[in-house]
């Protein structure tokens, strides 16, 4: 399968995401100003500080030309993964519910946290078991997930919270320890932790691979249908 990783001005974890994707398939960078997804099977909106995160994290990036294609791709059921800044961009773009607010500490935090898989009913977690713990780093200043009461209720009712911070590991004050949520169609997923920084035993844990492998398995399964 082929991943496309979007590069905005100010993306920082774009190459990291590219390398992580290449552990399970092919991957290439997509330029923010191009209106072309080059036929990839899944899109990754990577971490970093797109457009400097000025104004609000993700606020300016969501208007990049490529994002119109991403929205269309998502509407058609395409797999979209937003990591950290990518999550912020997808929320700003309305492709995911809620918003990300400044951490309650008001500080940037880097921390290796424990996550728990809360739902396996998604292309992103289908290779895991419910309750499985993943050790993955977070690094952000604006990662406190918030959604108004009605949206939050829907997230719970529809089993759209895919990852939570394990008890005691919530680094930012996110509501209900939410680390990652998907859209109604379950094909768009955003999370604050960085699975692409947990794919190599040399540099840390390999638990993040579970996400990328799930995507590959899902896409492979779909191809068979």
């Amino acid at each position, binding site marked *: 399968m082929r991943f496309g990783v979007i590069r905005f001005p100010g993306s920082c974890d774009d190459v990291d995401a590219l390398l992580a994707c290449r552990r399970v398939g092919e991957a290439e960078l997509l330029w923010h100003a191009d209106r072309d997804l080059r036929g990839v099977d899944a899109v990754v909106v990577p971490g970093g500080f797109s457009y400097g995160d000025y104004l609000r994290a993700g606020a300016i990036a969501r208007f990049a030309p490529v994002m119109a294609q991403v929205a269309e791709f998502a509407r058609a059921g395409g797999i979209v993964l937003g990591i950290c800044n990518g999550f912020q961009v997808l929320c700003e773009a309305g492709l995911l519910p*809620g918003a990300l607010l400044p951490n309650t*500490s008001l500080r940037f935090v880097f921390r290796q946290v424990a996550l728990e898989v809360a739902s396996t009913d998604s292309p992103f977690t289908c290779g895991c078991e419910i309750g499985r713990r993943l050790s993955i780093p977070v690094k952000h200043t604006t990662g406190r997930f*918030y959604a108004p009461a009605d949206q939050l209720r829907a997230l719970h009712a529809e089993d759209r919270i895919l990852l939570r911070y394990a008890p005691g590991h919530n680094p930012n004050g996110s509501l209900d320890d939410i680390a990652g949520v998907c859209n109604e169609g379950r094909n768009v997923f955003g999370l604050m932790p960085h699975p692409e920084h947990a794919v190599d035993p040399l540099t840390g844990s390999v638990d993040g691979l579970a996400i990328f492998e799930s995507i590959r398995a899902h896409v492979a399964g779909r191809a068979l249908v």
Partner: protein
Amino acid sequence: MRARVLVKPKAGILDPQGQAVERALPALGFTGVANVHVGRLIELDVEDPDQLPEMCRRLLTNPLIEDFEIVDAGSS
């Protein structure tokens, strides 16, 4: 026209910045301060002020978490 957009966190959403200010003031000897909220100020020259509300909704604020108010910078 020079306009100001005042952006405030929506009521009910935790505002740690406002809290931090509220906590820090007494230590500096400032008492009798309450209900502090921190938001954003955007000042700009606009040719067509009628565009402002739309600008606010689409870019300058996130309506899910923020309220805004537009004021004329000349008159405030």
